[in-house]
């Protein structure tokens, strides 16, 4: 799985520019994903690829279209030093894996081959031959992810009708 690498404060306006929010279908979102920060991304990303970034990934607008666009591109997960809180919430709520790990975010280079074990939170950079431990999710959030997203977990719990 190859890695796309970006810096700090990757905002939702560059993940999916507002001019494309009038077409919230997966195919359209995927075709414009990351367009304003990396025009090559949508054309070269392959299912299973990983996005690595610095601090405050996904800052700005609350648009869930941002994690949806990355998910629709087949991105396996985002590894970042930290996430903006609404992006963090949205990713969990739609069942899109994100890993907070400043050490991995600092070390992994663009193009490296990286493997991720979501069960343990262990990130392995096979190119560098290094492993990193991501912060674990609290049990409550783990339950949402395991249910396949927030709405499914609410149905499972019988809270939503």
């Amino acid at each position, binding site marked *: 799985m190859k890695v796309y690498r970006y810096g700090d*404060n990757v*905002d939702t*306006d*560059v993940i999916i*520019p*507002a*001019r494309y*929010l*009038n*077409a*919230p279908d997966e195919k359209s979102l995927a075709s414009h994903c990351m367009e*304003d*920060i990396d025009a090559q991304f949508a054309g070269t990303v392959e299912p299973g690829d990983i996005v690595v970034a610095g*601090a*405050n990934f996904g*800052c*700005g*607008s*609350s*648009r*869930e*279209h941002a994690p*949806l666009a990355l998910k629709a591109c087949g991105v396996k997960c985002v590894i970042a030093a*930290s996430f*903006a*809180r*609404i992006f963090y*919430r*949205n990713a969990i*709520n*739609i069942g899109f894996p994100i890993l907070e790990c400043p050490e991995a975010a600092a070390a992994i280079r663009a193009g490296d081959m990286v493997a991720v074990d979501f069960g343990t939170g262990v990130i392995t950079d096979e190119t560098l031959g290094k492993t990193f431990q991501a912060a674990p999710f*609290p049990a*409550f*959030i783990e339950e949402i992810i395991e249910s396949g*997203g*927030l*709405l*499914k977990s*609410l*149905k499972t719990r019988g*809270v*939503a*009708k």
Partner: protein
Amino acid sequence: MGMTMTQKILAKHAGLASVTAGQLVEGRLDLVLGNDITTPVAITEFDKAGLTQVFDRNKIAIVLDHYTPCKDIKAAQLCAQARSFAQRFGITHFYDVGQMGVEHALIPEKGLAAPGEVITGADSHTCTYGALGAFSTGVGSTDMAAGMATGLAWFKVPSAIKVTLTGKPGKYVSGKDVVLHLIGEIGVDGALYQSLEFAGDGVAELTMDDRFTIANMAIEAGAKNGIFPVDARTRAYLKGRVDRPWEAVEPDADAVYEREVIIDLSALRPTVSLPHLPSNTKTVDEAAGMSIQQVVIGSCTNGRLKDLQEAADILKGRQVAKGVRCIVIPATQQIYMDAMAQGLIQTFIESGCAVSTPTCGPCLGGHMGVLADGERAVSTTNRNFVGRMGPVSSEIILASPAVAAASAVVGVIADPETVMGGTQA
């Protein structure tokens, strides 16, 4: 251990005697909000999950404000989807073209936010209602769907930064300058996962419109919410708008803050954020002279009556500089009418401004003022990210209505005092 305002409100809505920072709680919602971009995604998720009921049709607000009046066919389809959902469930607070305004100006104006309440909105600037002493925060569309179905949301109880305001701001210093200065001090992730809790004798010097502007941009420092104490000005604002009972919440004397930031309002200068981050702040003195092609005065940050008054004071009897386009957007129909009654709209049009019906339009590069390659705008909006208002080569400088109006007159970034020289108090 003492609690902050935010912690107290969350504890109460979670049915707990107390909460501590980091705790995960499920809280009762007093209002769930969405707009024409986020609501359709929420509806799709709502239907996909097979949900068939909303928790309370009187506690959901849907405001069609971003691409409206609809800019193209795709936007019209999104609005149609939201309209049909609102009709299906008899949503009381559904605001369509003609009644709608920019959501975060409209919701307080309609009395839909009150002190002590918990509000989530599928729009990041939902944090605006913290100006009224509510806990309000932005979420995504799935959260909106879950909130509409259950009236509940999960929250990680935030720790807090105390922002103590002292002194009285100078003539051309407004809430926008305060919040841009704060973001410049702590950074765009300076309050990540935290609440910004405002305090100090300087709060009393700020109008409600100033406080809305400050709370609105809490998200630009990464904050979960920004919240102000309730005082005489808050009560005066709520009178005649909110008739249900509400409760003002004060922080405990021994509330725990991760740190304190002190801002002397009297020492602030008009402040701008240069491209491409809100934290890239300079005083107007440092930025003066930068060229601009467009000025935008409006948005959920600065489209309220006081903002329009401050801009009109500067534009009155003057002309927008040649080569500059100035777009003024009153945030709600009520603000539009009030501005008209006060002669502000006439002033804008006589000065050569274009005045628009309420819309978020240009703030997100949606419509009504999109930039061309290499163009630069000074805007009273909230984000100056790459590509926000046009192509990636376009630029946005964030500023107050006074700085935006002065810049429109001079044709470059300008200090309001330069334009008003000699007429200041």
